[in-house]
Every structure is written in structure tokens, then in C-alpha cells.
């Protein structure tokens, strides 16, 4: 009996939370989820790529590490990614509660995803790149 009580209570709380997020979260919630995935992918790409730069203790030996010239190109792409990332967050923040997500949000999420894919493509093929690609850019082989 003592075990069933907290379970019942948890189920009731879960029901309320689910009903509440369905009712009030609305379409802004959908934009937020896409943004959260895009942002997490951008942060992960930045961290993993930095670890793979030749000469760093975490980097594999050449030719699997990211050479200096490639790192420079990836930095330029990631800079663009984070400008878009912050703009996207501000756009979602500005949407009034309960309003539909604008097509611009979807367009910006798409751009961030494409740019992350471009950055991952520049990393030499290695188990680390494979693991990163599986998480952030499954289309990149």
C-alpha cells in the first residue's frame, strides 16, 4: 500500500503536467524543441572539433586530427552557426505564448543543421567524427 501511494500521486502529477503542456505550450513549444536540438548539436560540434585539432592532447595522430587550415575553416562556419543560434533563440523568445511558430524558425533551424553538417564534413574521418556525425549530422557519412 505504501508503495502504491507515491505511484498514484506521481501518475496524477504526470497527468496534470502533460495536460498543461498540451494546453498551454502550443506551437511555440515545437519551435523550442527544434531550437534546443540545434543548439545542443552546435555546442557538441564545437567541443568535439576543438578536441580533434592536431597537437592537442585529446587529438588523434595525423591524418585523423584536424589540421590548422581546416580548423580555421570550421571556426568560420561555427561562428555563423552561433550567430544564427543566438538569433533563433531571441526570435523564439519574442514569440507570444500560444502563437504559431513562424516559418522563419523552421528555416533558421534548417540553416543551423546544414552548417553543422558542413563543419562535420571537413573533419577527417575517424571514430570520433563518426560518433559526432551520428549525433548531430546523420546524413554525413
Amino acid at each position, binding site marked *: 500500500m505504501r508503495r502504491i501511494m507515491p505511484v498514484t500521486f506521481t501518475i*496524477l502529477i504526470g497527468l496534470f503536467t502533460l495536460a498543461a503542456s498540451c494546453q498551454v505550450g502550443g506551437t511555440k513549444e515545437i519551435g523550442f524543441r527544434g531550437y534546443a536540438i540545434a543548439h545542443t548539436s552546435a555546442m557538441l560540434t564545437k567541443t568535439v572539433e576543438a578536441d580533434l585539432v592536431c597537437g592537442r592532447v585529446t587529438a588523434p595522430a595525423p591524418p585523423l586530427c584536424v589540421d590548422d587550415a581546416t580548423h580555421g575553416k570550421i571556426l568560420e562556419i561555427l*561562428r555563423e552557426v552561433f550567430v544564427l543560434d543566438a538569433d533563433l533563440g531571441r526570435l523564439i523568445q519574442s514569440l507570444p505564448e500560444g502563437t504559431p511558430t513562424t516559418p522563419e524558425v523552421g528555416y533558421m533551424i534548417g540553416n543551423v543543421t546544414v552548417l553543422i553538417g558542413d563543419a562535420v564534413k571537413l573533419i577527417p574521418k575517424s571514430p570520433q567524427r563518426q560518433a559526432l556525425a551520428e549525433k548531430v549530422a546523420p546524413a554525413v557519412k
Partner: protein
Amino acid sequence: MPSFLTLVSLVGPLIEGFQKGAPFVKDLMALFANHDIAVRDEAIARMISEADSAKIEIDAEIEARSRRAKE
């Protein structure tokens, strides 16, 4: 701590409340929804700040690289 029977006896009125849109159910739902919104808005603000910091960090590295290249 309410007894198990008390909790079980709440389920019926709650389901009925959902169906009829009783004020106390609406209040409870609004309470949970407002909490969700606050958590989400906090997450958006944190992500914007992380993106801004990442951009500043990358700008500094690009700048340092171009300075090194000129030397």
C-alpha cells in the same frame, strides 16, 4: 500524507473535472503550465547566453589566428 484511498477517490472527480472544465482543475493545470513555461523560458535564455559566449570565444580565436598569420 493522504491515504491511498483518499488519492484514489480523487481520481474520479479529477477526470470529471477535466471533462467539465471545473475551475479547480483549470487552476491546477494553469499552475503546472506556468511552471513549464518558466522552465522553458529559462532554458531559452541560457542557450542564447551560451551561443553568445561561444561566438565571442570563436571571434577571439579567429582574431588570434589572423594576428599570428601576420607576424
